[in-house]
């Protein structure tokens, strides 16, 4: 063990390239590191921060660079009193909430079955789940639009919820499989020893253990439905029926922009979502990569 990490000095003397160990940094490298991160963080945070600041400025200063000349909540009161923001917010809540609930309920047992059992048709099902996740919105939007039109479901939350299930069901099943995979199989076996059926095992033992995973899945599918633009823009018309994604478009169209209400609305939509997200994101990535990497 002559070449233990402590002998770096000798190495660098004998080799042209200096071997710098992990975690070992010159002051210069350290400055460069922080500088890079500061620049990157500013780029990441700035657009969001700028919208937040703009929302707190009176409308007449909206597009000026003056920061704290006057701080006012006039954009917010204006937004809530004079626009349909709360209606849109409610519509979004209903649509995204129902989509999430239905998606999670429908796909939970499938996630479990795909994680635990080997059965004829499993491979086909897994491929279907995977492929439907890469369906472009363009391939289903026209037929679904026509079907919804013929059933009188256009412009109704229920129609949009059904449509969003095309996105959320495959996604939820896939992601929950990833979470179920992380629960040891010994628990299933102990359930069987105790005389539980596979349903019983799933319902009584595994589901309670998978609660955090299900919460994360639900959260992510909520966020997906909350932020969906294409179907919402195509299927909903009339100010009263829009969801937030459609409503914000009214503030900023080709002919002009009402930046005041737009920025205030953006803040009201983004801040709660961002807070929850920042707490949940660690589990989010685990679930997604567990499902996707292991197949």
């Amino acid at each position, binding site marked *: 063990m002559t070449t233990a*990490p402590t002998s770096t000095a000798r190495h660098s003397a004998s080799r042209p390239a200096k*071997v*710098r160990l992990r*975690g070992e*940094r010159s002051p210069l490298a350290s400055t460069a590191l*922080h500088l*890079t*991160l500061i620049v990157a963080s500013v*780029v*990441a945070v700035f*657009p*969001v921060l700028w919208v937040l600041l703009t929302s707190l400025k009176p409308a007449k200063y909206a*597009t*000026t660079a003056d920061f704290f000349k006057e701080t006012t909540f006039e954009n917010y009161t204006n937004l809530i009193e004079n626009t349909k923001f709360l209606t849109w917010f409610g519509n979004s809540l209903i649509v995204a909430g129902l989509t999430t609930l239905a998606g999670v309920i*429908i*796909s939970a*047992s*499938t996630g479990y*079955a795909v994680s635990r*059992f*080997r*059965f004829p*048709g*499993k*491979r086909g*099902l897994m491929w279907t789940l995977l*492929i*439907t996740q*890469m*369906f*472009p*919105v*363009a391939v289903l939007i*026209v*037929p*679904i*639009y*026509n*079907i919804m039109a013929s059933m009188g479901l256009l412009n109704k939350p229920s129609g949009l919820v059904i449509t969003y299930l095309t996105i959320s*069901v*495959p996604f939820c099943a896939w992601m929950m499989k990833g979470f179920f995979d992380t629960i040891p199989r010994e628990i299933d076996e102990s359930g069987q020893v105790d005389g539980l*059926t*596979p349903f019983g095992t799933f319902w009584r033992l595994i589901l309670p253990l998978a609660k955090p995973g299900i919460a994360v899945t639900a959260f992510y599918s909520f966020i997906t439905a*909350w932020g969906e*633009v*294409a179907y919402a823009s*195509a299927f909903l018309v009339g100010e009263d029926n829009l969801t*937030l994604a459609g409503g*914000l478009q009214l503030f900023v169209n*080709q002919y002009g922009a009402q930046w005041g209400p737009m920025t205030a609305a*953006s803040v009201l939509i983004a801040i709660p979502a*961002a807070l929850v*997200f*920042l707490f949940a*994101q660690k589990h989010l*990535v*685990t679930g997604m*990569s567990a499902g996707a*990497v292991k*197949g």
Partner: protein
Amino acid sequence: MAVHTSQSVVKAAGAESARGRSRGTGNPPPPGRLRRALSTHWYAWTMVAPVVIVIGVIIGYPLVRGVYLSLTDANERNVARSIGVNEMPATYKFVGLDNYTEALTGDQFLGTLGWTLVWTVSCVAITFALGLALANILNRKFAGRSAYRMALILPWAIPGFVSVFAWRFLYNEDRGLLNRILSGGGIDAVPWLDDPTWAKFSVIAVNVWLGVPFMMVALLGGLQSIPSEHYEAAEMDGATAWQRFRHVTMPGLRPVSTTVVLLSTIWTFNMFPVIFLLTRGGPGEATQILVTQAYKFSFEISPRDFAQSSTWGVLILVLLMVFAAIYRRVLRTQGDDW
């Protein structure tokens, strides 16, 4: 009884799948096999039934209808519709592969496809490079690491359409902040979204901004799963930082990076909101990608061209599936499962 059945399910989990067996022998299944399969697998099949039914009804059926529509001349004026109390029957007719020949021989589809490829490749490449760099930096120990991490994840935490509007605000030609900063430096205003070249640049920038956090977090997870013994061994062999990155980090990241590259390629290829909300495909059709153009056919022009839109939709799906198949094949020849 319940115990018995559940055990057989577990046993089946260990055994070779039925499909594999039947493919191996090639013989017709022996009598009673279906019944045996049913008694062994009915738990699994019942559990997957809700998803299978839902997918069949709300994805399968529309998909089939979409493919059918792409073989017709359906548009707003000849599909079944109701005007007041009158039901108008559909009058569109079957035209075979005409839409496909038209799309594949005309300029528009191929032109849009060209830009879509440029868009996808540049977005994914830049996002991956930045995500990898940031993940490597964040994987070290230093003061303020979690604060930086939080800041860098922020774009991912904001609903996409909100971010896109925020960027539209910054890009505004007359009064947007970016041009204000430039004019402070004495540089002329840049028509961020109104000049074809700048608009392409701008939409890519926004998509990269949106995509880097996911990439970074996923790669960071990958980095943390590389055993530190590998690095110690490399250090003992006197590997430089670059050599360690090249021969330890990159191979260790392979499973994660192949997945995120596949995912982000598909997402970017289908990225509707960025283009739609930022430029609506404009100026002209300069930033129109396949998905937004297909949307435009059915929802923004008059009369709405459902057939053309469906045709593009099917072509997009075929392209993506071919891509995924090739990607998977390449991975498999290199020894990965998927």
